[in-house]
C-alpha cells in the first residue's frame, strides 16, 4: 500500500501542478490521497473468500460444513466479515500513517464519520455476496480464479479505487455511479473525506438495491449448487 500511495501522491502532485487547480473532482490534493487510503483499505481487507469456497468445493471439505447446524453461506459470512474488519482496521492504520507523512492530516467531521460507519458494513456485505457468487461458480467451472481476477480489476477501475469517479469524463460518470462497485469503494471513501448528505442517500439507495439483487442471486445459486453436490465417502 505504501508504494501505491507514494506513486499516486506523485501522480496527483503532477496533475494538480499541471492543471493549476486547487480542487479536482471536488477534492484537494490531500483529500485525494486520503480517499485512496480509504478505498485501498476497503479493497485490500477482503479475504480470498472465493478461493476458500473454490477449494472446499474441489476437495469435498464442503461436506463437513454442511453437516453443521449453520448454513454454509452464513458460516462463511461470519468468518469473512470478522476477518475483514480486523484487516480493514490494520490497513487503515498503516495507510493513515503513510498519508500523514506524505500530505498531512485532513479535517474529518463527526457526521461524515457516522455516515461512513453506516455505509461501510453495507459495502462489506455486498462485496461478500459477490465473492460468494464467484466462489460458488466452482460447481460449474474448472477454476474461478479468472472471474475473481476480472471482478477485482473491474472494482479497481470502475469502482474508483485509484481515481474518484468524479474525475472521470462526465459522460461516463452516471454509468459508473450506478454500478455496484461504486457502492463498495467510491461512495464510502468520498463520504469519509468529503461528506455530503446527497452522496450518502444516493449510496444507501444503491447499496440496498445491490444487496437485494446480489442476495437473491447468491441464494438462488447456493440452492442450485447444493443440488449438484455429490459427496463420495472417504
Amino acid at each position, binding site marked *: 500500500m505504501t*508504494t*501505491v500511495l507514494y*506513486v499516486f501522491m*506523485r*501522480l496527483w502532485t*503532477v*496533475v494538480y501542478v*499541471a*492543471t493549476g487547480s486547487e480542487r479536482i473532482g471536488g477534492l484537494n490534493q490531500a483529500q485525494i490521497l486520503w480517499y485512496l487510503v480509504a478505498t485501498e483499505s476497503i479493497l485490500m481487507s477482503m479475504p480470498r473468500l472465493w478461493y476458500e469456497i473454490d477449494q472446499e468445493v474441489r476437495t469435498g471439505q464442503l461436506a463437513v460444513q454442511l453437516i453443521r447446524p449453520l448454513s454454509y453461506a452464513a458460516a462463511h459470512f461470519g468468518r469473512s466479515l470478522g476477518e475483514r474488519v480486523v484487516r480493514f482496521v490494520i490497513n487503515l492504520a498503516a495507510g493513515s500513517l503513510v498519508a500523514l507523512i506524505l500530505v498531512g492530516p485532513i479535517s474529518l467531521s463527526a457526521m461524515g464519520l457516522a455516515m461512513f460507519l453506516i455505509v461501510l458494513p453495507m459495502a462489506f456485505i455486498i462485496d461478500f455476496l459477490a465473492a460468494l457468487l464467484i466462489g460458488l461458480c466452482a460447481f460449474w*467451472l*474448472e*477454476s474461478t*480464479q*479468472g*472471474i475473481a*481476477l*476480472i471482478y477485482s*480489476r*473491474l472494482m*479497481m*477501475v470502475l469502482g474508483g479505487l*485509484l*481515481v474518484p469517479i468524479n*474525475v*472521470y*469524463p462526465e459522460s*461516463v460518470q452516471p454509468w459508473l455511479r450506478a454500478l455496484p462497485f461504486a457502492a463498495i469503494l467510491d461512495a464510502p471513501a468520498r463520504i469519509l473525506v468529503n461528506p455530503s448528505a446527497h452522496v450518502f442517500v444516493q449510496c444507501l439507495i444503491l447499496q440496498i438495491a445491490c444487496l437485494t439483487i446480489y442476495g437473491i442471486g447468491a441464494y438462488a445459486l447456493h440452492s442450485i449448487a447444493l443440488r449438484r453436490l455429490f459427496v463420495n465417502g472417504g
Partner: protein
Amino acid sequence: MRTLTNYLSLTGSYVRFNFRAQLEYRGAFFSQVAAMFINDGVWVVFWILFFKRFPVLHGWQVEDVIGLWAILTAGFGLAFGLMGNTLSIASIVAQGELDGWLLQPRAVLPHMLLGRSAPSAWGDALFGYVVYVGFVRPDWQRMVAFVLLSLAVGVVFIGFGVLSGSLSFFIGNAGALADQWRNTMISFATYPPTLFQGAVKILLYTAIPAGFASYLPVETLRQMSWGYALLTVCGALGMLAVGAGTFYLGLRRYESGNLISMNG
C-alpha cells in the same frame, strides 16, 4: 554454440511439455489467459479515461502509456510463461525442493526455471503484442524493436525474480518479501517515469529496477534510439548476471530438505 543450441532445444521441449500439461485442464488454462488479458485491458481503459481528462502528463501522452503497458506485459508474459518457476524460487529453496533439480545433468538454475509455466502469463504476453499492434500501429522497424525489447524486458524479470527469490538462501523463507519486492518493481514500472525524481529515480535503476523493465524500452521505442536500446540490453544482462550470481552464491548455503517425492 553447441551448448546454446542444446539449451534452446531443452527450452523448446519444456515449452511443449508445459503446454500439454496445462491443456489437461484447458478450461482453467484458457480462462486464466483470458482473465489476464482482460485484467491488463482494464488498466489500459483506466489510462485512456485518465488521459481524456488530463491529456498530457509531464510530456507523456496516452499512446506512451499504452506502449509502456504493452512492452511490460509482453516481457513479463514471455518471462513467466517460459520460466514460471522464477516466481516460486523462494518457496522451492525454503522447502528444500531443489534436490530434484540438483540431480539432473543440466545447469540447475535454467533447468529449474523452465520446470513450470505460469498459465496467466500467456495472457499478459498476448495482451502486450495485440495492444502494441492494435493501438500503436507500428511500422516494421518499431515492430522488430518491440519484439527484441520484449525479450530484453523478459530477461530483466527473470534476473530480478531470481535475485529476489534467492533471498531464501540467506534469510530463510523469503516468499512474502520476494513477492513484495517484485510487486513494488511492477507497481513503479507501470507509471510514467517522469513522475519520479531525485533519489527515487536512482532506486528505479538499482534496487527496484523498473527503469530497465519499462522506462528505457519505452524511450527506445519513442525515439528509436540505439543508445537507449543498448542501455536496455546492458541493464537486462546486468540484472541476469546479478540474479544468477546471487543464486549460485546462495546455493553453496543450500541444505537438502531430505524430501522424498515422485515426479511424474
